[in-house]
C-alpha cells in the first residue's frame, strides 16, 4: 500500500512539472476569460509599457534569437519555444519570471490577458 502511494505521489509530481507552452496559453486564456491576440502580444512585447525597458530590451524584438541583459550584458537564451525547448515547461519558473519582469517593465504585475497575448505571439514565432 505504501509503495502504491509513493508511486502515485511521484507520478503526480512529474505530471505537475511537465508543462508545455500551449498549457500556459490555455491557462492564461482561461484566467482572462477571453482568447489571446498574436498582434496585441507582439506590440506589448516590443513597446515600452511605462517602464525604462520593454520585454524586447533584453529578449530582442525577435526572441527566436538569443538576447542580452540590458544592464549586466549577460547572455540570455532565446525565449520563443520554437528556438528553445526548455522555455515554458515549468510552472514555478514561468510564474517567477512573469512576476519579476512585469514589475521591471510595467511597474506592476501583468494581467492574464497580457500574458495570454504574449504567449500566443511567442508560439507564433518559427
Amino acid at each position, binding site marked *: 500500500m505504501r509503495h502504491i502511494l509513493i508511486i502515485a505521489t511521484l507520478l503526480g509530481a512529474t505530471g505537475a512539472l511537465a508543462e508545455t507552452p500551449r498549457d500556459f496559453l490555455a491557462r492564461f486564456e482561461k484566467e482572462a476569460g477571453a482568447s489571446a491576440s498574436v498582434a496585441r502580444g507582439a506590440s506589448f512585447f516590443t513597446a515600452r509599457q511605462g517602464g525604462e525597458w520593454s520585454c524586447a530590451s533584453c529578449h530582442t524584438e525577435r526572441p527566436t534569437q538569443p538576447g542580452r541583459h540590458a544592464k549586466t*550584458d549577460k547572455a540570455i537564451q532565446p525565449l520563443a519555444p520554437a528556438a528553445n525547448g526548455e522555455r515554458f515547461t515549468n510552472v514555478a519558473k514561468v510564474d*517567477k519570471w512573469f512576476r519579476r519582469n512585469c*514589475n521591471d517593465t510595467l511597474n506592476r504585475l501583468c494581467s492574464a490577458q497580457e500574458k495570454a497575448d504574449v504567449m500566443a505571439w511567442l508560439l507564433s514565432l518559427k
Partner: protein
Amino acid sequence: MNRYLTLPVLLAVLTSLSLPARADRYSVPKHAAFEEECGSCHLAYPPQMLDAHSWLHVMNGLAHHFGTDASLDDKRRVAITDFLAQNAGGRKTGVTADAAGRPLLRITETARFVKKHREVSAATFKRASIKSPANCAACHRQAAAGDYSEHSINIPK
C-alpha cells in the same frame, strides 16, 4: 654546472612570480539554486566577495535589487541566503561596510574591489563591450570559474 642550476632557479623564480596571481582565485562552491537564481541575470559572484552581513541585506531586498525585481520564493531565498552566509567573506575581503558601519550591497564598492581596480578608468568601465563594473567576465575571462588572476585579464576595446 651552471647549466644544471639554471632550470630549477628559473622555475623557482617563475613560481614566485605567479603567486600573487594565485591569490585572486576563488573557490566557487557548488550550489544549484544559487547558480540558477543569481546566475540568470549576472555572473554568480563568488560568495567570498561580500561579508555575511552584506549578503543578508542583499537577500532581504531582492524585490528591489539594483533597480530590478529579483524576488524569490521563501524556500529558495532562505536556502541561498544560508549558502552565501556560510561561504561569505574571508581574510582578503574583510568587513564590507561603509564608514558609518552600514553593510555595503555592491561588490564594486568594497575596499578590495576599489583597490584592485584603481588603474581602470570610469570611461573604460562604460565601454559598450563592458557596460558596467559589475560585468566581471568582460575582462576577467575565466571569472565564471573563480579565476580573477592577472593572467586571465583581457580588457576589450
